[in-house]
Protein backbone atom coordinates (compact mmCIF):
# COMPACT_ATOMS: atom_id res chain seq x y z
CA UNK A 1 0.00 0.00 0.00
CA UNK A 2 2.67 2.43 1.08
CA UNK A 3 4.95 1.19 -1.68
CA UNK A 4 2.14 1.62 -4.14
CA UNK A 5 1.57 5.19 -3.01
CA UNK A 6 5.27 5.94 -3.30
CA UNK A 7 5.51 4.66 -6.85
CA UNK A 8 2.40 6.55 -7.75
CA UNK A 9 3.80 9.85 -6.53
CA UNK A 10 7.15 9.02 -8.13
CA UNK A 11 5.53 8.45 -11.51
CA UNK A 12 3.55 11.64 -11.02
CA UNK A 13 6.77 13.51 -10.29
CA UNK A 14 8.47 12.07 -13.35
CA UNK A 15 5.39 12.95 -15.30
CA UNK A 16 5.52 16.54 -14.08
CA UNK A 17 9.17 16.78 -14.93
CA UNK A 18 8.65 15.31 -18.35
CA UNK A 19 5.74 17.63 -18.96
CA UNK A 20 7.82 20.59 -17.85
CA UNK A 21 10.63 19.55 -20.19
CA UNK A 22 8.11 19.17 -22.97
CA UNK A 23 6.59 22.58 -22.27
CA UNK A 24 10.09 24.08 -22.24
CA UNK A 25 10.78 22.57 -25.62
CA UNK A 26 7.46 23.85 -26.96
CA UNK A 27 8.15 27.32 -25.60
CA UNK A 28 11.72 27.31 -26.93
CA UNK A 29 10.73 26.40 -30.45
CA UNK A 30 7.75 28.75 -30.45
CA UNK A 31 10.05 31.62 -29.57
CA UNK A 32 12.71 30.46 -32.01
CA UNK A 33 10.34 29.62 -34.87
CA UNK A 34 10.19 32.92 -36.81
CA UNK A 35 13.94 33.52 -36.75
CA UNK A 36 14.87 29.87 -37.23
CA UNK A 37 12.54 29.47 -40.21
CA UNK A 38 13.73 32.71 -41.75
CA UNK A 39 17.40 31.84 -41.40
CA UNK A 40 16.74 28.33 -42.66
CA UNK A 41 15.01 29.54 -45.83
CA UNK A 42 16.89 32.75 -46.61
CA UNK A 43 20.35 31.73 -45.44
CA UNK A 44 20.83 27.97 -45.30
CA UNK A 45 18.60 26.88 -48.17
CA UNK A 46 19.52 29.95 -50.23
CA UNK A 47 23.23 29.35 -49.82
CA UNK A 48 22.97 25.61 -50.49
CA UNK A 49 20.83 26.23 -53.56
CA UNK A 50 23.23 28.89 -54.76
CA UNK A 51 26.16 26.54 -54.25
CA UNK A 52 24.48 23.83 -56.30
CA UNK A 53 23.53 26.37 -58.98
CA UNK A 54 27.15 27.45 -59.21
CA UNK A 55 27.90 23.92 -60.50
CA UNK A 56 25.03 24.09 -62.99
CA UNK A 57 24.40 25.73 -66.29
CA UNK A 58 21.54 27.97 -65.20
CA UNK A 59 20.71 30.71 -67.69
CA UNK A 60 17.31 32.29 -67.32
CA UNK A 61 16.36 29.55 -64.86
CA UNK A 62 17.05 28.69 -61.25
CA UNK A 63 16.32 24.99 -61.77
CA UNK A 64 19.07 22.55 -60.88
CA UNK A 65 20.09 19.58 -62.96
CA UNK A 66 22.21 20.77 -65.83
CA UNK A 67 25.48 20.01 -64.08
CA UNK A 68 28.65 21.45 -65.54
CA UNK A 69 31.12 20.87 -62.70
CA UNK A 70 33.53 23.74 -62.18
CA UNK A 71 32.88 25.38 -65.54
CA UNK A 72 31.26 28.48 -64.04
CA UNK A 73 34.20 29.03 -61.73
CA UNK A 74 36.60 28.58 -64.63
CA UNK A 75 34.67 31.03 -66.83
CA UNK A 76 34.58 33.50 -63.98
CA UNK A 77 38.26 33.40 -63.13
CA UNK A 78 39.22 33.60 -66.81
CA UNK A 79 36.86 36.53 -67.43
CA UNK A 80 38.79 39.79 -67.82
CA UNK A 81 35.77 41.69 -66.44
CA UNK A 82 35.76 39.72 -63.18
CA UNK A 83 39.53 40.03 -62.81
CA UNK A 84 39.26 43.76 -63.40
CA UNK A 85 36.55 43.87 -60.73
CA UNK A 86 38.87 42.15 -58.26
CA UNK A 87 41.63 44.65 -59.04
CA UNK A 88 39.13 47.49 -58.62
CA UNK A 89 37.97 46.31 -55.22
CA UNK A 90 41.56 45.66 -54.11
CA UNK A 91 42.53 49.21 -55.01
CA UNK A 92 39.40 50.63 -53.43
CA UNK A 93 40.06 48.75 -50.18
CA UNK A 94 43.63 49.98 -50.19
CA UNK A 95 42.43 53.59 -50.50
CA UNK A 96 39.40 53.58 -48.26
CA UNK A 97 40.37 51.41 -45.30
CA UNK A 98 43.49 53.30 -44.09
CA UNK A 99 41.96 56.74 -44.75
CA UNK A 100 38.73 56.00 -42.92
CA UNK A 101 40.63 54.37 -40.09
CA UNK A 102 42.98 57.35 -39.65
CA UNK A 103 40.33 60.02 -40.01
CA UNK A 104 37.77 58.40 -37.71
CA UNK A 105 40.47 57.82 -35.09
CA UNK A 106 41.62 61.42 -35.47
CA UNK A 107 38.08 62.72 -35.08
CA UNK A 108 37.55 60.56 -31.99
CA UNK A 109 40.75 61.85 -30.39
CA UNK A 110 39.81 65.47 -31.08
CA UNK A 111 36.21 65.10 -29.92
CA UNK A 112 37.34 63.20 -26.83
CA UNK A 113 39.71 65.99 -25.79
CA UNK A 114 37.52 69.07 -26.07
CA UNK A 115 36.36 70.32 -22.69
CA UNK A 116 33.16 71.81 -24.12
CA UNK A 117 31.02 71.16 -27.17
CA UNK A 118 32.13 67.56 -27.60
CA UNK A 119 28.54 66.42 -28.06
CA UNK A 120 27.97 69.03 -30.77
CA UNK A 121 31.01 67.99 -32.79
CA UNK A 122 30.21 64.33 -32.31
CA UNK A 123 26.75 64.90 -33.73
CA UNK A 124 28.05 66.85 -36.72
CA UNK A 125 30.54 64.12 -37.68
CA UNK A 126 28.08 61.31 -37.05
CA UNK A 127 24.96 62.67 -38.73
CA UNK A 128 26.07 61.85 -42.32
CA UNK A 129 25.61 58.23 -41.24
CA UNK A 130 21.87 58.83 -41.50
CA UNK A 131 22.15 59.69 -45.21
CA UNK A 132 21.89 56.99 -47.86
CA UNK A 133 24.67 56.18 -50.33
CA UNK A 134 22.24 57.07 -53.10
CA UNK A 135 21.62 60.59 -51.82
CA UNK A 136 25.30 61.16 -51.08
CA UNK A 137 26.18 59.91 -54.57
CA UNK A 138 23.71 62.41 -55.98
CA UNK A 139 25.37 65.29 -54.13
CA UNK A 140 28.88 64.15 -55.02
CA UNK A 141 28.09 63.51 -58.68
CA UNK A 142 26.00 66.56 -59.50
CA UNK A 143 26.91 69.28 -57.00
CA UNK A 144 30.52 68.72 -55.93
CA UNK A 145 32.33 66.77 -58.66
CA UNK A 146 30.17 67.47 -61.69
CA UNK A 147 33.09 68.37 -63.95
CA UNK A 148 31.71 71.80 -64.80
CA UNK A 149 32.84 75.17 -63.44
CA UNK A 150 29.58 75.16 -61.44
CA UNK A 151 30.70 72.23 -59.29
CA UNK A 152 32.07 72.94 -55.83
CA UNK A 153 35.37 71.09 -56.39
CA UNK A 154 36.11 72.97 -59.60
CA UNK A 155 35.12 76.27 -58.00
CA UNK A 156 37.58 75.63 -55.19
CA UNK A 157 40.51 74.72 -57.42
CA UNK A 158 39.49 77.57 -59.71
CA UNK A 159 40.36 79.94 -56.87
CA UNK A 160 43.95 78.87 -57.39
CA UNK A 161 43.70 79.38 -61.11
CA UNK A 162 43.30 75.70 -62.04
CA UNK A 163 41.25 74.60 -65.03
CA UNK A 164 38.03 72.64 -64.38
CA UNK A 165 38.63 68.90 -64.04
CA UNK A 166 36.37 66.14 -65.39
CA UNK A 167 36.33 64.25 -62.14
CA UNK A 168 34.32 61.25 -63.19
CA UNK A 169 34.91 61.43 -66.92
CA UNK A 170 38.33 59.96 -67.58
CA UNK A 171 40.42 56.97 -66.62
CA UNK A 172 43.62 59.00 -66.87
CA UNK A 173 44.21 60.69 -64.54
CA UNK A 174 41.90 58.53 -62.39
CA UNK A 175 40.28 61.38 -60.45
CA UNK A 176 37.15 59.28 -59.98
CA UNK A 177 38.86 57.54 -57.07
CA UNK A 178 38.84 60.82 -55.18
CA UNK A 179 35.09 61.04 -55.68
CA UNK A 180 34.45 57.45 -54.58
CA UNK A 181 36.74 57.61 -51.55
CA UNK A 182 35.50 60.95 -50.24
CA UNK A 183 31.83 60.02 -50.49
CA UNK A 184 32.28 56.86 -48.44
CA UNK A 185 34.56 58.71 -46.04
CA UNK A 186 31.90 61.33 -45.40
CA UNK A 187 29.23 58.71 -44.83
CA UNK A 188 31.26 56.36 -42.64
CA UNK A 189 33.85 58.31 -40.67
CA UNK A 190 31.41 59.31 -37.92
CA UNK A 191 30.20 55.76 -37.43
CA UNK A 192 33.72 54.50 -36.76
CA UNK A 193 34.48 57.59 -34.70
CA UNK A 194 31.67 56.50 -32.35
CA UNK A 195 33.24 53.06 -31.99
CA UNK A 196 36.65 54.62 -31.28
CA UNK A 197 35.08 57.01 -28.75
CA UNK A 198 33.61 54.03 -26.91
CA UNK A 199 37.07 52.46 -26.87
CA UNK A 200 38.68 55.67 -25.60
CA UNK A 201 36.20 55.87 -22.73
CA UNK A 202 37.41 52.48 -21.51
CA UNK A 203 40.97 53.66 -20.98
CA UNK A 204 41.48 54.48 -17.28
CA UNK A 205 42.50 58.08 -16.59
CA UNK A 206 45.09 56.97 -14.05
CA UNK A 207 47.18 55.51 -16.85
CA UNK A 208 47.65 58.95 -18.35
CA UNK A 209 48.58 60.39 -14.99
CA UNK A 210 51.06 57.57 -14.43
CA UNK A 211 52.55 58.16 -17.86
CA UNK A 212 52.87 61.84 -17.08
CA UNK A 213 54.82 60.97 -13.94
CA UNK A 214 56.98 58.61 -15.97
CA UNK A 215 57.91 61.45 -18.25
CA UNK A 216 55.52 61.10 -21.19
CA UNK A 217 54.94 64.81 -21.72
CA UNK A 218 53.85 65.19 -25.31
CA UNK A 219 50.54 64.11 -26.71
CA UNK A 220 52.35 61.96 -29.25
CA UNK A 221 54.19 60.00 -26.57
CA UNK A 222 51.04 59.21 -24.60
CA UNK A 223 49.26 58.29 -27.83
CA UNK A 224 52.05 55.90 -28.83
CA UNK A 225 52.52 54.27 -25.47
CA UNK A 226 49.04 54.29 -23.98
CA UNK A 227 46.14 55.27 -26.20
CA UNK A 228 46.97 53.29 -29.30
CA UNK A 229 48.05 50.04 -27.59
CA UNK A 230 44.95 50.12 -25.39
CA UNK A 231 42.73 50.72 -28.40
CA UNK A 232 44.01 47.50 -29.94
CA UNK A 233 40.77 45.53 -29.69
CA UNK A 234 38.74 48.47 -30.95
CA UNK A 235 41.16 48.99 -33.83
CA UNK A 236 40.95 45.34 -34.85
CA UNK A 237 37.15 45.53 -34.79
CA UNK A 238 37.11 48.73 -36.85
CA UNK A 239 39.53 47.31 -39.43
CA UNK A 240 37.44 44.18 -39.74
CA UNK A 241 34.18 46.11 -40.23
CA UNK A 242 35.88 48.47 -42.71
CA UNK A 243 37.30 45.60 -44.79
CA UNK A 244 34.02 43.71 -44.93
CA UNK A 245 32.14 46.86 -45.91
CA UNK A 246 34.68 47.87 -48.57
CA UNK A 247 34.55 44.49 -50.28
CA UNK A 248 30.79 44.80 -50.62
CA UNK A 249 30.84 48.26 -52.17
CA UNK A 250 28.02 48.69 -54.64
CA UNK A 251 25.79 51.73 -54.15
CA UNK A 252 28.24 54.54 -54.84
CA UNK A 253 29.91 52.78 -57.77
CA UNK A 254 26.54 52.04 -59.33
CA UNK A 255 25.15 55.52 -58.82
CA UNK A 256 28.26 57.57 -59.59
CA UNK A 257 29.98 55.55 -62.30
CA UNK A 258 26.99 53.63 -63.62
CA UNK A 259 26.86 49.91 -64.14
CA UNK A 260 23.27 48.91 -64.65
CA UNK A 261 22.33 49.20 -68.27
CA UNK A 262 25.79 50.27 -69.41
CA UNK A 263 27.41 47.25 -67.81
CA UNK A 264 25.58 44.97 -70.18
CA UNK A 265 26.10 46.90 -73.36
CA UNK A 266 29.75 47.82 -73.25
CA UNK A 267 32.89 48.27 -71.25
CA UNK A 268 32.82 52.04 -71.05
CA UNK A 269 32.69 52.04 -67.27
CA UNK A 270 35.63 53.46 -65.37
CA UNK A 271 35.57 50.98 -62.53
CA UNK A 272 33.29 48.13 -61.63
CA UNK A 273 33.54 46.34 -58.27
CA UNK A 274 32.57 42.64 -57.97
CA UNK A 275 29.02 43.30 -56.75
CA UNK A 276 28.25 45.52 -59.73
CA UNK A 277 29.70 42.81 -61.98
CA UNK A 278 27.56 40.16 -60.24
CA UNK A 279 24.50 42.38 -60.55
CA UNK A 280 25.08 42.65 -64.29
CA UNK A 281 25.61 38.89 -64.66
CA UNK A 282 22.68 37.79 -62.52
CA UNK A 283 20.18 40.57 -63.33
CA UNK A 284 21.22 41.57 -66.82
CA UNK A 285 22.24 38.26 -68.39
CA UNK A 286 20.14 36.17 -65.96
CA UNK A 287 23.06 33.78 -65.71
CA UNK A 288 22.39 32.54 -62.19
CA UNK A 289 25.01 29.80 -62.31
CA UNK A 290 27.80 32.22 -63.05
CA UNK A 291 26.32 34.78 -60.63
CA UNK A 292 26.24 32.24 -57.81
CA UNK A 293 29.81 31.17 -58.53
CA UNK A 294 30.86 34.82 -58.32
CA UNK A 295 29.01 35.25 -55.02
CA UNK A 296 30.88 32.32 -53.52
CA UNK A 297 34.27 33.42 -54.79
CA UNK A 298 33.68 36.86 -53.29
CA UNK A 299 32.39 35.46 -49.99
CA UNK A 300 35.41 33.18 -49.76
CA UNK A 301 37.70 36.11 -50.48
CA UNK A 302 36.12 38.21 -47.72
CA UNK A 303 36.37 35.38 -45.21
CA UNK A 304 40.00 34.81 -46.21
CA UNK A 305 40.94 38.46 -45.91
CA UNK A 306 39.31 38.79 -42.49
CA UNK A 307 41.07 35.65 -41.27
CA UNK A 308 44.44 36.90 -42.52
CA UNK A 309 43.79 40.29 -40.97
CA UNK A 310 42.74 38.63 -37.73
CA UNK A 311 45.94 36.59 -37.66
CA UNK A 312 48.14 39.55 -38.55
CA UNK A 313 46.72 41.70 -35.78
CA UNK A 314 46.30 38.95 -33.22
CA UNK A 315 42.54 38.69 -33.28
CA UNK A 316 41.13 37.74 -29.92
CA UNK A 317 44.36 38.33 -28.08
CA UNK A 318 43.95 40.56 -25.06
CA UNK A 319 45.18 44.11 -25.12
CA UNK A 320 48.10 43.72 -22.74
Amino acid at each position, binding site marked *: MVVGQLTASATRLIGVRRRRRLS*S*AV*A*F*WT*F*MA*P*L*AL*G*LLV*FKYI*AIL*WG*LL*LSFSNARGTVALGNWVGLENYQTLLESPAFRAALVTIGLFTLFIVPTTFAISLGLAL*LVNRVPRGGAFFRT*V*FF*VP*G*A*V*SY*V*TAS*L*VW*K*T*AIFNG*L*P*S*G*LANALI*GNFGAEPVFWIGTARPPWFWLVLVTVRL*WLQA*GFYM*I*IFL*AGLKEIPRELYEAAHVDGARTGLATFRHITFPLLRNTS*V*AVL*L*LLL*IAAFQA*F*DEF*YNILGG*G*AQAQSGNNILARPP*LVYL*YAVAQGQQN*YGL*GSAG*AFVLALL*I*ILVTLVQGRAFGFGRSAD
Partner: protein
Amino acid sequence: MRRRLGTLALYGPLTVLAAIFLVPFYLIVRTAVMTIPQSTSLTWQWFPTSVTLGNFATLFSDPSAPMASGLVNSALISTFTLVFSILFSSMAGYALARIPVRGRNLVLYAVIATLMIPGAVTFVPTYIVVGSLGGVNTLWGIIVPGLFNAFSTFLFRQFYLRFPVEIEEAGKIDGLGYFRVYWHLLLPNSKGIMVALGLLAFMESWNSFLWPLVIGQNPSDYTVQLVISTFLTEQGINLPELFAGACIAVLPVVVVFLIMQRYIVQGVTMTGIRG
Protein backbone atom coordinates in the same frame (compact mmCIF):
# COMPACT_ATOMS: atom_id res chain seq x y z
CA MET B 1 49.02 81.58 -23.00
CA ARG B 2 50.11 78.03 -23.65
CA ARG B 3 46.72 76.69 -22.64
CA ARG B 4 44.96 79.15 -24.91
CA LEU B 5 47.12 78.01 -27.82
CA GLY B 6 46.26 74.40 -27.00
CA THR B 7 42.54 75.15 -27.00
CA LEU B 8 42.88 76.98 -30.29
CA ALA B 9 44.78 74.05 -31.79
CA LEU B 10 41.87 71.84 -30.76
CA TYR B 11 38.86 73.96 -31.69
CA GLY B 12 40.39 75.36 -34.88
CA PRO B 13 40.64 72.05 -36.79
CA LEU B 14 37.41 70.79 -35.26
CA THR B 15 35.45 73.79 -36.49
CA VAL B 16 36.92 73.57 -39.99
CA LEU B 17 36.18 69.84 -40.16
CA ALA B 18 32.65 70.34 -38.84
CA ALA B 19 32.01 72.96 -41.52
CA ILE B 20 33.27 70.56 -44.22
CA PHE B 21 31.05 67.77 -42.92
CA LEU B 22 28.00 70.06 -43.06
CA VAL B 23 28.58 71.32 -46.61
CA PRO B 24 26.85 68.37 -48.36
CA PHE B 25 23.70 68.95 -46.26
CA TYR B 26 23.76 72.57 -47.25
CA LEU B 27 24.18 71.64 -50.91
CA ILE B 28 21.09 69.39 -50.76
CA VAL B 29 18.96 72.27 -49.45
CA ARG B 30 20.58 74.87 -51.70
CA THR B 31 19.99 72.94 -54.90
CA ALA B 32 16.46 71.98 -53.85
CA VAL B 33 15.38 75.62 -53.70
CA MET B 34 17.13 76.73 -56.93
CA THR B 35 15.30 77.48 -60.15
CA ILE B 36 16.16 75.34 -63.16
CA PRO B 37 18.08 78.10 -65.02
CA GLN B 38 20.13 78.69 -61.88
CA SER B 39 20.94 75.04 -61.49
CA THR B 40 22.19 74.78 -65.06
CA SER B 41 24.24 77.96 -64.88
CA LEU B 42 27.94 77.45 -65.47
CA THR B 43 29.17 79.41 -62.47
CA TRP B 44 29.41 78.19 -58.93
CA GLN B 45 27.04 79.84 -56.44
CA TRP B 46 27.06 79.44 -52.68
CA PHE B 47 23.77 81.29 -52.47
CA PRO B 48 21.05 81.13 -55.12
CA THR B 49 19.92 84.62 -56.15
CA SER B 50 16.26 83.68 -55.94
CA VAL B 51 14.74 80.96 -53.85
CA THR B 52 11.74 78.83 -54.82
CA LEU B 53 9.78 76.08 -53.12
CA GLY B 54 8.10 75.14 -56.40
CA ASN B 55 10.38 72.13 -56.90
CA PHE B 56 8.68 70.34 -54.04
CA ALA B 57 5.31 70.80 -55.73
CA THR B 58 6.45 69.74 -59.22
CA LEU B 59 8.19 66.73 -57.69
CA PHE B 60 4.90 65.23 -56.62
CA SER B 61 3.12 66.03 -59.86
CA ASP B 62 5.92 64.68 -62.09
CA PRO B 63 4.64 61.42 -63.63
CA SER B 64 8.16 60.24 -64.52
CA ALA B 65 9.20 60.18 -60.85
CA PRO B 66 6.97 58.10 -58.55
CA MET B 67 8.16 60.05 -55.53
CA ALA B 68 4.96 59.87 -53.49
CA SER B 69 4.62 56.12 -53.86
CA GLY B 70 8.36 55.77 -53.23
CA LEU B 71 8.00 57.51 -49.89
CA VAL B 72 5.00 55.38 -48.96
CA ASN B 73 6.82 52.19 -49.95
CA SER B 74 9.92 53.14 -47.99
CA ALA B 75 7.90 54.03 -44.91
CA LEU B 76 5.99 50.74 -45.09
CA ILE B 77 9.09 48.64 -45.67
CA SER B 78 11.17 50.28 -42.95
CA THR B 79 8.40 50.24 -40.35
CA PHE B 80 7.66 46.60 -41.01
CA THR B 81 11.34 45.76 -40.84
CA LEU B 82 11.76 47.66 -37.59
CA VAL B 83 8.84 46.00 -35.82
CA PHE B 84 9.28 42.43 -36.97
CA SER B 85 13.05 42.14 -37.05
CA ILE B 86 13.17 43.39 -33.47
CA LEU B 87 10.33 41.14 -32.36
CA PHE B 88 11.86 38.04 -33.97
CA SER B 89 15.35 38.81 -32.66
CA SER B 90 14.20 39.45 -29.11
CA MET B 91 12.01 36.34 -29.06
CA ALA B 92 14.84 34.15 -30.28
CA GLY B 93 17.31 35.93 -28.00
CA TYR B 94 15.07 35.18 -25.02
CA ALA B 95 14.74 31.51 -25.94
CA LEU B 96 18.49 31.18 -26.42
CA ALA B 97 19.23 32.89 -23.11
CA ARG B 98 16.53 31.66 -20.78
CA ILE B 99 14.70 28.53 -21.89
CA PRO B 100 16.76 25.47 -21.04
CA VAL B 101 16.40 22.73 -23.62
CA ARG B 102 18.73 20.12 -25.01
CA GLY B 103 20.73 21.24 -28.02
CA ARG B 104 20.27 24.95 -27.29
CA ASN B 105 23.94 25.71 -27.88
CA LEU B 106 23.78 23.94 -31.21
CA VAL B 107 20.92 26.23 -32.24
CA LEU B 108 22.93 29.24 -31.07
CA TYR B 109 25.91 28.17 -33.19
CA ALA B 110 23.66 27.67 -36.19
CA VAL B 111 22.38 31.23 -35.76
CA ILE B 112 25.85 32.73 -35.29
CA ALA B 113 27.30 30.77 -38.22
CA THR B 114 25.12 32.78 -40.62
CA LEU B 115 27.12 35.87 -39.66
CA MET B 116 30.18 34.40 -41.36
CA ILE B 117 28.64 34.95 -44.79
CA PRO B 118 28.84 38.64 -45.76
CA GLY B 119 25.33 40.00 -46.29
CA ALA B 120 25.46 41.72 -49.66
CA VAL B 121 27.20 38.77 -51.27
CA THR B 122 24.17 36.57 -50.70
CA PHE B 123 21.92 38.66 -52.91
CA VAL B 124 22.19 36.16 -55.77
CA PRO B 125 21.23 33.08 -53.69
CA THR B 126 18.51 35.05 -51.87
CA TYR B 127 17.14 36.26 -55.19
CA ILE B 128 16.91 32.63 -56.32
CA VAL B 129 14.87 31.64 -53.25
CA VAL B 130 12.62 34.71 -53.16
CA GLY B 131 12.11 34.40 -56.90
CA SER B 132 10.96 30.81 -56.67
CA LEU B 133 8.56 31.77 -53.86
CA GLY B 134 7.03 34.33 -56.19
CA GLY B 135 8.44 37.37 -54.42
CA VAL B 136 9.91 39.23 -57.40
CA ASN B 137 8.23 42.62 -57.93
CA THR B 138 6.39 42.45 -54.62
CA LEU B 139 6.75 44.49 -51.48
CA TRP B 140 6.97 41.37 -49.31
CA GLY B 141 9.86 40.18 -51.48
CA ILE B 142 11.71 43.35 -50.48
CA ILE B 143 10.78 43.10 -46.80
CA VAL B 144 10.83 39.47 -45.71
CA PRO B 145 14.47 38.44 -46.29
CA GLY B 146 15.57 41.38 -44.13
CA LEU B 147 13.57 40.40 -41.06
CA PHE B 148 15.95 37.76 -39.71
CA ASN B 149 18.87 39.40 -38.00
CA ALA B 150 21.29 36.95 -36.42
CA PHE B 151 23.46 39.69 -34.94
CA SER B 152 20.59 41.44 -33.15
CA THR B 153 19.49 38.05 -31.87
CA PHE B 154 22.95 37.51 -30.43
CA LEU B 155 22.88 40.95 -28.76
CA PHE B 156 19.42 40.28 -27.30
CA ARG B 157 20.67 36.94 -25.98
CA GLN B 158 23.58 38.66 -24.25
CA PHE B 159 21.19 41.24 -22.83
CA TYR B 160 18.73 38.66 -21.46
CA LEU B 161 21.60 36.62 -20.00
CA ARG B 162 22.46 39.59 -17.80
CA PHE B 163 18.82 40.14 -16.85
CA PRO B 164 18.33 39.39 -13.12
CA VAL B 165 17.02 35.85 -12.61
CA GLU B 166 15.08 36.91 -9.51
CA ILE B 167 12.49 38.88 -11.48
CA GLU B 168 11.87 35.91 -13.72
CA GLU B 169 11.68 33.52 -10.74
CA ALA B 170 9.19 35.79 -9.01
CA GLY B 171 7.05 35.74 -12.12
CA LYS B 172 7.22 31.95 -12.28
CA ILE B 173 6.13 31.67 -8.64
CA ASP B 174 3.16 33.84 -9.51
CA GLY B 175 2.31 31.21 -12.08
CA LEU B 176 3.51 32.95 -15.21
CA GLY B 177 4.64 30.71 -18.06
CA TYR B 178 7.45 31.53 -20.47
CA PHE B 179 5.16 33.54 -22.69
CA ARG B 180 3.85 35.81 -19.95
CA VAL B 181 7.31 36.21 -18.43
CA TYR B 182 8.56 37.37 -21.81
CA TRP B 183 5.63 39.64 -22.57
CA HIS B 184 5.06 41.18 -19.12
CA LEU B 185 8.51 41.18 -17.56
CA LEU B 186 11.24 41.06 -20.19
CA LEU B 187 9.84 43.12 -23.05
CA PRO B 188 8.96 46.15 -20.91
CA ASN B 189 12.44 46.03 -19.42
CA SER B 190 14.33 45.90 -22.71
CA LYS B 191 13.10 49.15 -24.21
CA GLY B 192 16.60 50.65 -24.44
CA ILE B 193 18.15 47.87 -26.50
CA MET B 194 14.98 47.59 -28.60
CA VAL B 195 15.02 51.27 -29.51
CA ALA B 196 18.77 51.16 -30.20
CA LEU B 197 18.67 48.13 -32.49
CA GLY B 198 15.28 49.09 -33.92
CA LEU B 199 16.47 52.50 -35.06
CA LEU B 200 19.52 50.99 -36.73
CA ALA B 201 17.26 48.48 -38.49
CA PHE B 202 14.93 51.28 -39.60
CA MET B 203 17.73 53.46 -40.96
CA GLU B 204 19.40 50.57 -42.72
CA SER B 205 16.13 49.59 -44.31
CA TRP B 206 15.23 53.16 -45.33
CA ASN B 207 18.64 53.69 -46.93
CA SER B 208 19.16 50.27 -48.48
CA PHE B 209 19.58 50.11 -52.22
CA LEU B 210 20.96 46.87 -53.64
CA TRP B 211 18.21 44.50 -52.53
CA PRO B 212 15.21 46.69 -53.50
CA LEU B 213 16.98 47.28 -56.83
CA VAL B 214 17.37 43.55 -57.46
CA ILE B 215 13.93 42.43 -56.38
CA GLY B 216 11.55 45.28 -57.24
CA GLN B 217 11.67 46.10 -60.92
CA ASN B 218 8.24 47.69 -61.08
CA PRO B 219 8.27 51.47 -60.65
CA SER B 220 5.25 51.04 -58.36
CA ASP B 221 7.45 49.03 -55.95
CA TYR B 222 10.33 51.51 -56.01
CA THR B 223 11.63 52.72 -52.67
CA VAL B 224 12.60 56.34 -52.32
CA GLN B 225 16.26 55.43 -52.92
CA LEU B 226 15.38 53.73 -56.19
CA VAL B 227 13.35 56.71 -57.34
CA ILE B 228 16.32 59.00 -56.73
CA SER B 229 18.72 56.59 -58.39
CA THR B 230 16.65 56.12 -61.56
CA PHE B 231 16.18 59.85 -61.71
CA LEU B 232 19.95 60.35 -61.36
CA THR B 233 20.91 57.98 -64.16
CA GLU B 234 18.37 59.49 -66.57
CA GLN B 235 19.37 61.82 -69.36
CA GLY B 236 18.57 65.50 -68.96
CA ILE B 237 17.60 65.45 -65.33
CA ASN B 238 15.76 68.17 -63.51
CA LEU B 239 18.31 68.81 -60.78
CA PRO B 240 16.34 71.03 -58.38
CA GLU B 241 13.44 68.60 -58.43
CA LEU B 242 15.79 65.69 -57.80
CA PHE B 243 17.34 67.50 -54.86
CA ALA B 244 13.92 68.33 -53.49
CA GLY B 245 13.30 64.59 -53.52
CA ALA B 246 16.61 63.98 -51.77
CA CYS B 247 15.66 66.57 -49.17
CA ILE B 248 12.45 64.75 -48.38
CA ALA B 249 14.22 61.37 -48.33
CA VAL B 250 16.91 62.58 -45.94
CA LEU B 251 14.80 64.71 -43.61
CA PRO B 252 12.85 62.07 -41.64
CA VAL B 253 15.94 59.97 -41.00
CA VAL B 254 18.05 62.93 -39.93
CA VAL B 255 15.35 64.19 -37.58
CA VAL B 256 14.91 60.77 -35.98
CA PHE B 257 18.68 60.49 -35.82
CA LEU B 258 19.10 63.79 -34.02
CA ILE B 259 16.32 63.13 -31.51
CA MET B 260 17.31 59.55 -30.75
CA GLN B 261 21.06 59.95 -31.04
CA ARG B 262 21.75 58.53 -27.60
CA TYR B 263 20.17 55.21 -28.57
CA ILE B 264 21.86 55.11 -31.93
CA VAL B 265 25.26 55.65 -30.35
CA GLN B 266 24.43 52.79 -28.01
CA GLY B 267 23.48 50.58 -30.95
CA VAL B 268 26.63 51.42 -32.90
CA THR B 269 28.79 50.79 -29.86
CA MET B 270 27.22 47.34 -29.57
CA THR B 271 28.01 46.75 -33.24
CA GLY B 272 31.63 47.61 -32.53
CA ILE B 273 31.85 44.67 -30.19
CA ARG B 274 31.29 42.44 -33.18
CA GLY B 275 34.96 42.46 -34.16
